[in-house]
């Protein structure tokens, strides 16, 4: 009996750890190229909640349950060479709303990033494939998107030279097109962010993102907000963040975001906490 309890507890713990370290690419393309053989690891957990929804005419409507969703993401980046960075990510979710709930590993993403400017870092293209894992693809309570997808985008970063004890600014933006195999609508993804480095203290940032559907397919039936990515939806979201270094290699970031406007999307408030490890420091 004790062994069974331990075993169950151990499995839950393992699953919890796996969830905490799972990730997916949560934005359009990233602009930063890794040096050859440089490794970068990022893991984050976000909590989303809301009891309203933007309907198909972009009107806010009360829904009959408040969702409470935990999303876990992780990604690794590896500098294959000066010209190419390899990317891999995995997501997981644990969500509930009323009587509906789900828990499980979501989608695997594999991608490659390349340089748009052969001399300077901060301008890149990126192609990512989205691969469903073993969950049931037509289940309306599934932890991933349920289809193979292909995402292609470009991103850029402009930042002032970072110096110790000196404040500086950086601006980042990216756009991507996400194409799905099968009926879901294809999407246009974009983001723009600005960060202000407060000397050696940390960075404060603001980010606005816009995801828009091409409406070339009908919405799929899903029960949870983040699965609407496969559906015919639009969303404009804003977030603020604070990030800081733990030591030379580890950093953390906390962020709070909210949907400003949407269509076919839950009106969620999201709180996130990320950590990252950079072997290049």
């Amino acid at each position, binding site marked *: 009996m004790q062994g069974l309890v331990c075993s169950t507890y151990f499995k839950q713990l393992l699953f919890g750890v796996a969830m905490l370290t799972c990730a997916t690419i949560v934005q359009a393309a990233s602009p930063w*190229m890794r*040096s*050859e*053989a440089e490794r970068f690891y990022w893991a984050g957990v976000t909590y989303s909640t809301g009891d309203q929804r933007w309907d198909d005419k972009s009107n806010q409507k009360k829904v009959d349950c408040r969702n409470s969703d935990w999303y876990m993401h992780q990604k690794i980046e590896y500098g294959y060479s*000066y010209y190419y960075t390899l990317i891999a990510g995995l997501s997981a979710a644990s969500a509930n709303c009323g009587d509906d709930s789900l828990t499980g590993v979501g989608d695997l993403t594999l991608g490659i990033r390349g340089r748009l400017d*052969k001399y300077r*870092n901060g301008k890149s293209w990126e192609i990512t494939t989205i691969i469903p894992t073993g969950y049931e693809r037509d289940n309306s309570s599934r932890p991933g998107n349920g289809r193979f997808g292909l995402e292609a985008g470009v991103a850029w970063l402009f930042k002032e030279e970072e110096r*110790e004890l000196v404040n500086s600014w950086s601006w980042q933006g990216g756009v991507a097109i996400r194409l799905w195999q099968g009926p879901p609508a294809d999407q246009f993804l974009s983001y723009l962010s600005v960060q202000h480095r407060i000397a050696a203290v940390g960075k404060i940032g603001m980010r606005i993102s816009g995801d828009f559907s091409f409406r070339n397919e009908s919405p799929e039936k899903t029960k949870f907000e983040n699965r609407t990515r496969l559906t015919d939806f639009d969303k404009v979201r804003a977030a603020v963040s604070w990030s800081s270094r733990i030591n030379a290699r580890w950093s953390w970031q906390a962020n709070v975001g909210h949907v400003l406007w949407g269509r076919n999307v839950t009106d969620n408030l999201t709180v996130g906490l990320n950590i990252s490890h950079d072997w*290049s420091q």
Partner: protein
Amino acid sequence: MKLSIDFICRAAGIVMLSRVLVLFFLSMAVHADERWTTEKASMVDSIEKQTGLSRTSIGTLHLNMRPIDADVLFRKDPHDTSSFAVSIVDDAGEMLKGRIKVSGSFTRRFPKKSIFIKLENGQQWKGRQKVSLDAMATDGSMQREWLAWQLVHALGMPGPELQYVRVYINNRYSGLFMHTEWLDTGVLARYGLGADGQFFHPSDSRFCGDFLPHHKKTLKDCWFKLSPRDKDFSPLQALMDDIAQTPVKEFHEYLEMHFDVDSVINWLALNVLTSNGDTYNKNYFLYRSAITGKWVVIPWDYDLSFGRNWDAYLPFPENILNDNFQYFYPPELGAPNPLKEKTLRNPVLNQLFTERMLHLLGEKRHGAAATFGWFSPKAMRERIDRTAIRLQPERIDDPYLKDSAIDFSQETESLWHYVQRRHAYLREIFTGAVPWNPELAIWNPADAPPRPALSVSLFASQQVSANGQYATIAAPAYGYLLAAIKLKDNNGEAAKFNVESAINHTPTVFPPGYDPASCIQRSWFITLRTPFKSRVMDLQLDYLQEDSQRQELGSVRSEQNFTLWVLDGQRWHKLKTHVNPLSNVISTQNMTIHPSQMLRFVACPESTES
């Protein structure tokens, strides 16, 4: 009377005998010197054969890369650490395959970057798998490292061999580099220290490889272990404890037992001569030979030496890259380090250090003839000029230097000015003319409050020989150089001069039409004290630009525009002037001065003349 004659005869005999003995020992010393010199020459030949690196000729290195990689290598983001495929074409035309990448930390931001090549296993060029090519980007003279390593080798210290090399990438000239032999235990084995010792190097970015007790807990962050490749830092830990626990008065015994004492003394001497403050917490290696059981210090990185000065008041990178100049920092300069400080404070070691300094300065011989006066202005002048002559044509074609704003002759001249001044300053210190108390030997300008501005008048009186050389006239008790005078009228007679400088003062008397606030904030006064004859001289006058706070530039900072004016007692005369803004020296030639005449000099910018 008989007794007296007997006494005189005996005394004469003793004198004769002593003379014979002195002559015998002198001849032995001369023979020993000759033998040393011959051995030295043969050692240099042997090293050239072993390493393939020549100390006297400029080598050539051909590299082949993909065109896009070659294009990107020097132009990519400075902090990118990617490598690219490369082939070295060896003397037989064989392709040696490997990877090439930009090396260095601070120097990565320069257009001409240092590079590092690692050949594939089993491939070697000049007997080495790793090839390090220093771009010398921070050193406009391209000589600082070279000169420092020449002294290292002259002193017999272990260290890498160097050779200037022309680097061609895909048959296109990519500039002159310094091929620095990769420092590993193989180099140390060449010096009889074996290859299986404990080899450590302070981290370049942590600034804590200094044996200070409060860095004990972070020892593994402060140091890299280079060989053997294990995690055993206990030898270094024990060394740190021993240095902390050994009292100063017993430190010579400790050093004798656990260190190659010469390597410590020579390391300090090298840093003091070159005024290298960028060390003692980084930029050196420690090796404990398994053969001798003793630690050896190997110096490293001298690009920011020979007068270059860090500026505590400017942001990065101007704090490093500036045209500040100093030659007057005391022997304890550099980061705090108990190994340095206890060595300087221990009377036995201090005596050894002082003798080494006097020997290298050419003041008093305490060692081999080949190194006696190694740092004398005459020897250094020859060395600098000889190297400059070799480098000058290479620079003309160097794609990264031919259009740069660096004035090579100015850079070379500033090296020479530094040597003149540092020699004069150290001579004052080690002959006791300028007080120096090693008990106070802690130097940490970063922690020190700003020193009070100089607002005094410095005075010196000195006889100047008519030997065709500049005589440096330094302020007694300060060591600051006030002027350097070279007599031009070759009548063989020396002359005595009084030199006075009103330091850090807006000139109270100045040429008409000039704004004195724009002039250099110093006035110079020179008086010929030798009667009867007028003299013709070349003159160097110094001003201060130690850092952005302690300087005498006034409101105009463009030093090239300064012109020297002289007041001969009646009228102001504008002089043909040469300014070296790097060494802060204003020169004029063929200046006539009459007996008892006091000449007043000021330097004002051309553009403010009304």
